């Protein structure tokens, strides 16, 4: 299955925050297995998703990204036993800032991604990209 965007493609720009030990290897594996997803997806790795500032997520949207995806450690986090709850709280805080600025909550997604979750990652990216495209289309119709 090809998730590739065509030349001159205007697929939504997505910034993925990954984690060095868990989700980033999963994203690496997606590439190693040539599981294609839109080239407008870019990744930035951090040690732990609980260390993300809500303002960074919003800054990405302010700067021109159409969507932000947090590929969190979930239950596998080696640092923090409550990582999933902490990351969910960060997402909630970011969505509150987004709401104040009129940015739809659908532009921010979070999912736990394991170190071998190659197929789920490629699927998440295709689905998120499609959802953001629908969001833009409905906004332009309105």
């Amino acid at each position, binding site marked *: 299955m090809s998730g590739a965007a065509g030349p001159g493609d205007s697929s939504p720009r997505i910034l993925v925050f990954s984690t060095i030990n868990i989700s980033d290897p999963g994203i690496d594996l997606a590439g*190693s297995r040539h599981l294609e997803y*839109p080239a407008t997806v870019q990744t930035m790795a951090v*040690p732990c998703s609980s260390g993300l500032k809500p303002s*960074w997520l919003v800054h990405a949207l302010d700067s021109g990204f159409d969507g932000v995806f947090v590929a969190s450690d979930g239950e596998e986090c080696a640092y*923090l036993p409550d990582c999933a709850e902490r990351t969910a709280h960060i997402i909630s805080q970011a969505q509150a800032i987004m709401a104040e600025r009129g940015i739809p909550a659908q532009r921010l997604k979070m999912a736990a991604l394991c170190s071998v979750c190659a197929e789920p990652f490629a699927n998440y990216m295709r689905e998120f990209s499609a959802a953001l495209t629908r969001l833009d289309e409905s906004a332009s119709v309105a």
Partner: protein
Amino acid sequence: MTTPDSPEPVADASATSGKPERRIGVYICHCGGNISDYVDVEAVREALKDEPGVVVSESPVFACSDGTQHDMIDDIRGRNLDGLVVASCSPKLHQVTFRNVAKRADLNQYAYTQVNVREQDSWAHPHDRSGATEKAIGLVRAGVAKTRLSDPLEPLVVQTVPRALVVGGGITGLRAAIGLADVGIQAVVVERAATLGGWVGTFGATFPDDASGAEEVAGLVEEIRKRRDITTYTGAELTGKSGSFGNYTVELTLHRDGSDKVLSLEVGSIIVATGFDAYSPDDGEFGYGIDGVVTLPEFKAMVDAAPSGGLTWRGRQVRSIAYVYCVGSRQEAGGNEYCSKYCCTATIHASLQVGTVDPSIRQYHLYRDIRAYGRNELLYNASREAGSTYVKFADDQPPSVAALPTGGLAVTVTDLLTESRELTIGVDLVVLVTGMVPRDPSRLVEVLKLPVGSDGFFNEIHPKLRPVETVVDGVMIAGCCQSPRTVGESVSAGLAAVAQSAALLKKGFAELEPLVARVNPEKCTGSGECLSSCPYDAITSIEWEGRSIASVDPATCKGCGGCVPVCGRDAIDLLGYTDAQMRAAIEEMVATERPKEPVA
């Protein structure tokens, strides 16, 4: 041993404006054709050459080749570079390679940034050359932005003590202690029970080689007695730990004659090998509580003690046995979802033992799936050839066990392999093949700050690449305290922890990543919000210029950054991922072609 740095103001974006412009070298790798077949590497190089701070922009065929490494060193020295960006494969492959390049050229290794344009670009977008090229430009620009704002950092050097504490005196801990002594590291074993040996020390014949577990453990204990560099404490517990990696002070409480004695000692590393508990069925679970229904450990003890010529249960001769597999393992969500891994083979092996005690005993194995993997498959084959009957039941149709009014037990099961017919088998004994459950980890979590997974077992950093290390530097886990496993697998993990301890302690010093949290004392108001956010107690409150502020101990900080978003004053930065670096990288990533307009 390190002490917390005196607080220093953290540079922010504006603070860099007065600094001289950086001199950064950028190398975009072709990786043969792995990258350049799908990314226009020359276009990326061209796009980067005029970026602020970039003075070298090259596109080698293989960045990791010896020749290119020498070229990089020549560039760094000859052109006085103070930053290095390599855009090639995943940092998991060559981060160490290029950090060494920086070190050989006397460039601060933390002024180097790896950008992944292979696994996360060229290989993921083989049919979108222009898209992959545009993406690569953004990724490399982000790497340059992070490098431009990087601070020179040095690894934290800590002196190490050549002594290791082994928590747990089962077979894994005992074998690890001998391994430590073999490589010249003193070992101290602390065992909570009154005797050494753990589970295996109670076993007779064990798979795969029929060797007696008790005899194997006795051999290890005998060997330990000969060694001057191994000390064992039974009836003792680890009750405290202080200090930093490489030189921990541990507190052992020795329970002696109704009173406790406390012993302190210095250790460089700690190996946790505390084993497992057996699953204990609820009353009524598969008939547990009915006379003649026993668990696997109870059955194993019975078989090990059985004299040749007969197996008895409470004075009655056992003529038939039903084994019900997967009790307490592979449960539905919310229960023990994992497979306990050892119990299929342990049961098959015990049933073969029964065959040697009395070959006329009829044996029925009621299973969901038989997981006698690897060479253990041969035991499964031997069991069938010896006359055991295997009956497969569906996950959602477990067998039921009832007492017969005439004595004995009736096991009712729907056999998937004979047209799903319901069978009722009359037997004298039912063995519930119970799996492993984690021991209560709360005490060790409190003392060592070890992370625990959702299944209750301790978590390693990475299940494949760092399988015995934990996020607590110098603290390793080994054996069934990590997850269910066999004796051989547990001992292997113990010896891996020995190798890891040797790697940490034999040099006499260790280097820690300096990518830790740092508090900006100017911004910190001493609210204390961050203090409780760190499960490793790396943050404390100190006095600074007449007021209380937070301070991070760099040797204790794990570098997760969990305290960063907690601070309402933005006073904490994670080095290598500072607020200024993250914002600049985000902006550079998206600054290609499309305008920077806020989305709505």
